């Protein structure tokens, strides 16, 4: 990549980054604030899990299914582990796995999508046909088969889910990029003799970011659900690793047993709630972002 004459390309920002952030945050609606708080809390829990959790991730501390008490805030699970601690460790594993998986799928799918939109030709044809085929195979069943072939290791799970997800990302990235690559500014950049990397990252990507970010929000949450479904079908994350999806699946029989004592909520509700809350939070933020980039003025 050419490095000379950077002054031509960098337009000085009128405001500093911090000013921009502050201005933007000041206009954020309640829902976006709610979403951001949820995300911050979750990320904090994920990062500082070992310090926050009162007990170990797979430490058996008491009898099974104790109701919540001062000792065990949310009670204990099916083999007597502290539910609250497992939820916190679950944040780390669940968010970590979902994040890595989604990033990977966007890296693969996004790059390929933009590249094929830009290049067209035989590469586009070949990749598109293969992606079509993968899209046409049910994700869950295909993931089951691949996990059986390669083994149920966490790394395999991440790679397989990322690969299957990347086909969805590819389609979206390619479709949106196709609209952008015909734009004049891309043509201009091509005429200027810019390399592929410049065009992809400086011209195309910024302009297809909004739909991609929306997709990121949803995909991110779908990873939890896919893992939960896989756990339900007997593969997925292996015990004793705490993961919200698997935690719901592990105690599924409890969902239909009547709640007996009032403060005692059955074990599967907590991780399910954790997933739901995070999804709502992330999507509130994404909605707000989408709203901001759509150019639609707020009307009260």
């Amino acid at each position, binding site marked *: 990549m050419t490095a000379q004459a950077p002054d031509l390309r960098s337009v000085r920002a009128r405001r500093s980054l911090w000013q921009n952030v502050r201005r933007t945050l000041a206009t954020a609606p309640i829902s976006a604030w709610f979403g951001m708080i949820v995300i911050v809390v979750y990320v904090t829990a994920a990062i500082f899990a070992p310090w926050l959790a009162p007990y170990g991730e797979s430490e058996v501390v008491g009898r*099974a*299914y104790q109701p919540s008490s001062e000792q065990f805030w949310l009670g204990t699970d099916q083999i007597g582990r502290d539910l609250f601690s497992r939820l916190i460790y679950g944040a780390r594993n669940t968010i970590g796995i979902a994040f890595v998986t989604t990033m990977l799928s966007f890296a693969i799918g996004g790059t390929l999508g933009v590249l094929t939109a830009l290049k067209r030709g035989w590469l586009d044809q070949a990749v598109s046909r293969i992606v079509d085929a993968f899209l046409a195979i049910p994700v869950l069943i295909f993931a089951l088969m691949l996990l*059986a072939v390669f083994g149920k290791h966490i790394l395999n799970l991440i790679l397989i889910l990322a690969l299957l997800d990347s086909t969805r990302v590819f389609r979206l990235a390619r479709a949106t990029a196709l609209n952008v690559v015909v734009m004049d500014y891309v043509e201009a950049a091509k005429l200027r003799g810019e390399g592929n990397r410049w065009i992809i990252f400086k011209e195309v990507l910024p302009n297809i970011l909004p739909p991609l970010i929306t997709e990121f929000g949803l995909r991110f949450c779908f990873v939890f659900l896919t893992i939960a479904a896989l756990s339900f079908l*007997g593969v997925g994350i292996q*015990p004793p690793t705490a993961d919200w999806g698997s935690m719901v699946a592990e105690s599924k*029989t409890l*969902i*239909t*047993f009547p709640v007996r004592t009032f403060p005692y909520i059955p074990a599967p509700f907590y991780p399910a709630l954790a997933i739901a809350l995070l999804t709502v939070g992330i999507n509130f933020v994404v909605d707000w972002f989408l709203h901001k980039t759509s150019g639609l003025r707020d009307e009260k």
Partner: protein
Amino acid sequence: MDETTHKLTTALRQAVRGRISRREFTQLALASGVSLAAANSMFSKAWADEPKKGGTLKIGVGHGATTDSMDPGTYPDQFTGTALWGTLANSLTEIDADGNVVGDIAESFESSDGAKKWVFKVRKGVTFHDGKPVTADDVVASLQHHRGADSKSAAKSLLKEIVVLKADGPDTVVFELTGGNADFPYTVSDYHMPIMPKKPDGTVDWESGNRTGAYKLVKFEPGVKATFTKNENYYKPGKGWFDAVEFYSIKDSAARTNALLSGEIHYMDRCDLKTLDQLQANTDFTVTEITGYGHYIYVMNVTQKPFDDVNVRMAIKYSMDRKDILDKVFFGHGTVGNDNPIAPTVKFAVDPLPKHVYDPDKAKEYLKKAGLDSLAFDLSVSDAAFSGAVDSAILWKEHAKKAGIDINVIKEPDDGYWDNVWLKKPFVASYWSGRPTVDWMMTTAYAADAAWNDTFWKNARFNELLVAARSETDEPKRAAMYAEMQQILHDDGGLVNMQFNPYVEAHVKNMGHGKVAANWQLDGMRIAERWWFT
């Protein structure tokens, strides 16, 4: 029996038959000094004990696949076993609730020549569902079905010991075996060997479902359900009380529980142990727990280092806290094992001494005897062996640490576990559903030349006794031989028997039954003919 009890029993019998009313019975009971509560409970118990006709029994079974077929040689599990054998068909013999073998299609059987030759008399008056009487030819053809060179039957290896199989007249079947086997009648009680009608071409008709059982097949939808209707001409007196029976394949344990809770089925097998307390607390249902023959074990290859040293094996056996695993992984359901694969309910079973309980110091002692300070090895496990195998192994790892043993738990893939791990890796988790006789179990898994000798253990004295006991017809002598064999296996073998797993099943309150058999789930798979609605 004193006079009052006798009077009461007679009155009860009359009450149940409707000859006297409940009030009359209660008055009589009170008059003879029995409390009202006791009288009431006597009355309702008598009702439950007295079989009644009628009703449609619906059972939810945790097995069943779309690949299930009517071919009894390929029956894989409880669904086909209970529905297509226990409900629909009969074998030559059956195993009763006490674990003894009794005649079923065979009226009688006797051996000669040191249990080398067996003669089975076919019961008279037994007919197939289409009305055709059962003859010796049908029996021969039914067993022959498993024996051909291209047979894919799971029973093929069981029948290997047969040299001659022939009909001698219309109601006599003669078997000649390679060696004496006093337990041969047990072999032909297996659920893979129902008696089926012979076709004109000499083969057997397994396709149509025309059998001899208490119920006739209405419809079989593989992997979904099987429905049956009562066989009015069933030969067994006092068996088969329901008008119709329906089996549903419900593989998800939560769905099975919900079907029971919502009243869609009357009986479920394989209860979820996690929520069993909640189910037991529900007074509408009864939970039964029967310790069967099945056992969860870890087996080591005794021909490989370090397991070739008996002291190492002993150290390993003392390093597992079976009680802890039973409590934590199986919620206390089961019976801890003592490195003897013969379940306590099997005839001739003994409980060898000293008991192998958790004792880190003793384990260390044995390690020292083997000339070792510490021990490290890989343990290959998967929940395909038995559900809970992985969790148990992880707990065991913690126990063994205290004895200076470092177990490296390797989680193998579920798929292909029996092909790629079992019998291949040096130390693995395994499961045996158990066998109804000592000989059968030992011949299958611990004899020197057994195809499934998963410990690769070859003990001269053990094998000598095994052959000798097989043809020994004197019971006390046989018992002594079997006791010695179990002791040898306990002291020297390569198996760590963690526990005998129970059959935990649940049913609605209004069902009656006799003593429940332990040889298979669902009352020896014959629940449909043995139980009734009260």
